């Protein structure tokens, strides 16, 4: 009966009820869509980071990443050929990519520039690192003398596909060594710092150039849904001298900081949206309750305490909140499905050089959170608006016009 009266009261002034419902809907819809947008950005950035640079994470000798060594190769993984089948045998591991990284000079006979070389298993990596955008040529796969250059590096060398490049570097014993390569492709990841410095050559050639068969790191691709922390613990148990680091830590400056930054921004926007909803509802509900002073006086005259009157009005606020928030979520989902199927084209983000479309990715958990937050906000606004009238002396309520 209590609930029936509360629900029926929603139809008392349809225009006002509609205004309240739309205010709540705007709040829940905005929260839902904004979170979906952030979710889309982060998922895209995550996938881009995983499939262009780091994989889901990488293995190094324990403590290697935290220190600077004069001779880093002395701290590289030496038993790679024995380790590889054991890593591949872990059910959650789908790909392992041995890598070495070194600094070298690249020359085309006219220009010499410094760069950061990566020796990789080209064929294996070409199957996984699919977001390493190849602007010209092809990706590095099974070409034994192929070199893949970052866009900035290729521009500095003024080089074209098929041109010859010599890479000069120091062997692990300290002597100068050099190898000739043929440019097979030019890539860009969107991260300028990376594209201006990195070049990739086959791992065998890197080993020859550095005169070692050790591996600096092993990038890994894991099965969907794998919890990296679980995998890292498993690796730690089996190989205590190895350390597994997730891509989020490896790319902390861009990925993790972006996630943290966007989450903070979302928190602030959330507060702003909910404040607007509170003010909007407060205004509408206040007007509605002022019109019902006499009715509230009658309720109190018949024995309802001010808390019971507040409870009745709270039911109305709750009904406004529930209906409005589900309306908002339904509308934002529909608008996204109808008008934004191809995402929103965003300008280059800080540190990136290209535009990218952001898909709004809805998260069912966020639908529930948005609905709950908006409902509670509607309830709070109603309670604030009701407080004064519910506590008016009965005679004053009844006398009001």
């Amino acid at each position, binding site marked *: *009966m*209590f609930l*029936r*009266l509360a629900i*029926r*009261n929603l*139809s*008392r002034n349809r225009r006002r009820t509609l205004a309240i419902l739309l205010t709540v809907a705007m709040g829940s819809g905005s929260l839902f869509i904004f979170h979906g947008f952030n979710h889309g950005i982060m998922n895209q950035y995550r996938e881009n980071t995983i499939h262009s640079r780091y994989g889901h994470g990488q293995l190094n000798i324990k403590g290697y990443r935290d220190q600077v060594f004069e001779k880093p190769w002395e701290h590289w993984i030496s038993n790679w050929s024995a380790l590889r089948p054991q890593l591949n045998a872990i059910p959650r591991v789908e790909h392992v990519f041995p890598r070495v990284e070194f600094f070298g000079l690249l020359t085309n006979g006219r220009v010499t520039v410094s760069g950061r070389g990566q020796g990789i298993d080209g064929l294996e990596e070409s199957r996984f690192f699919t977001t390493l955008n190849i602007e010209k040529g092809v990706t590095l796969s099974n070409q034994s003398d192929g070199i893949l250059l970052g866009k900035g590096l290729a521009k500095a060398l003024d080089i074209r596909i098929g041109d010859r490049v010599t890479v000069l570097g120091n062997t692990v014993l300290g002597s100068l060594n050099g190898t000739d390569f043929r440019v097979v492709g030019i890539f860009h990841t969107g991260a300028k710092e990376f594209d201006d410095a990195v070049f990739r050559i086959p791992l065998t050639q890197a080993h020859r150039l550095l005169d070692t068969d050790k591996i600096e790191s092993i990038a890994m691709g894991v099965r969907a849904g794998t919890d990296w922390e679980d995998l890292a613990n498993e690796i730690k148990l089996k190989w205590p001298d190895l350390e597994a680091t997730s891509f989020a830590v490896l790319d902390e400056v861009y990925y993790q900081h972006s996630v943290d930054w966007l989450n903070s921004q979302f928190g602030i926007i959330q507060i702003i949206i909910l404040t607007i909803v509170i003010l909007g509802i407060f205004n509408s509900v206040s007007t509605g309750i002022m019109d019902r002073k*006499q*009715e509230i*006086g*009658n309720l*109190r*005259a*018949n*024995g*309802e*305490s001010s808390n*019971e009157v507040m409870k009745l009005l709270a039911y109305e606020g709750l009904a406004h909140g529930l209906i409005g928030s589900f309306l908002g979520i339904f509308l934002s989902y529909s608008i996204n499905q109808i008008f934004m199927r191809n995402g929103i084209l965003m300008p280059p983000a800080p540190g990136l050089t290209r535009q990218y479309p952001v898909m709004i990715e809805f998260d069912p958990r966020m639908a529930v959170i948005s609905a709950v937050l908006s409902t509670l906000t509607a309830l709070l606004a109603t309670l604030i608006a009701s407080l004064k009238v519910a506590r008016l*002396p*009965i*005679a004053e309520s*009844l006398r009001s016009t």
Partner: protein
Amino acid sequence: MSQSNQILYDADKVHFQYQLGHQRIEALREVTFQIKAGDLVCLSGPSGSGKSTLLNLLGLIEPMQTGNIFFQGHSLKKLNENQKNQLRKFELGFIFQHFHLFPVLTAEENIEYFLFRQGLPKKERVLRAKKSLESVGLWSHRHKKPLEMSGGQRQRIAIARALAKHPKVILADEPTASLDQKTGAEIMSLFLQANQERGTTLIVSSHDPMVVNYCKNKINLRDGLTVVQQESHHVSTSCH
């Protein structure tokens, strides 16, 4: 008609004043009277004489200032808010000039609502709503909402609502003021019927001579003072 000599209300030197800006208006001055259980009492007097203020004090709608009112021997001044709510919920029924029905509920639901708040089971609520609607002749209108009814019908629903609570006393503030004379007389007949058949004490405030004529006892007020409390022996039972 069941009537006893038990004193229901005992008012002793009741004084009440309103604050209007910087000005204090004295609404009641040293008002003293008694009302017996089962009475049909009229608080009469011109506008501004303090009728509504007195009715509000009897109904615990205004807080007591000076003086005291005893209800069934208990000082209303000593009741806490919770006790006042219990009294309003179970012992008192109200009828207002402007009816104050819930516009979104049907006539039957309007009656049932306060019964529900009294904690009565559904079966009892339905039975009481039916009886009280029948007693005011509006059972056939039970599914109508207040806005679909005339002023007289709305006031009858308000009476049915008050009666259904089975209160000890019904306080009616200018119940006929918004109605024409014929409908007003019908309403007063219903009051008289409830008083005679159920023994419900009725306290009606009005300045309408027709209403005053229906009452057994009268408390005349003028400028906040009790002019006279008198018992009438000519109680009209006719509504024509």
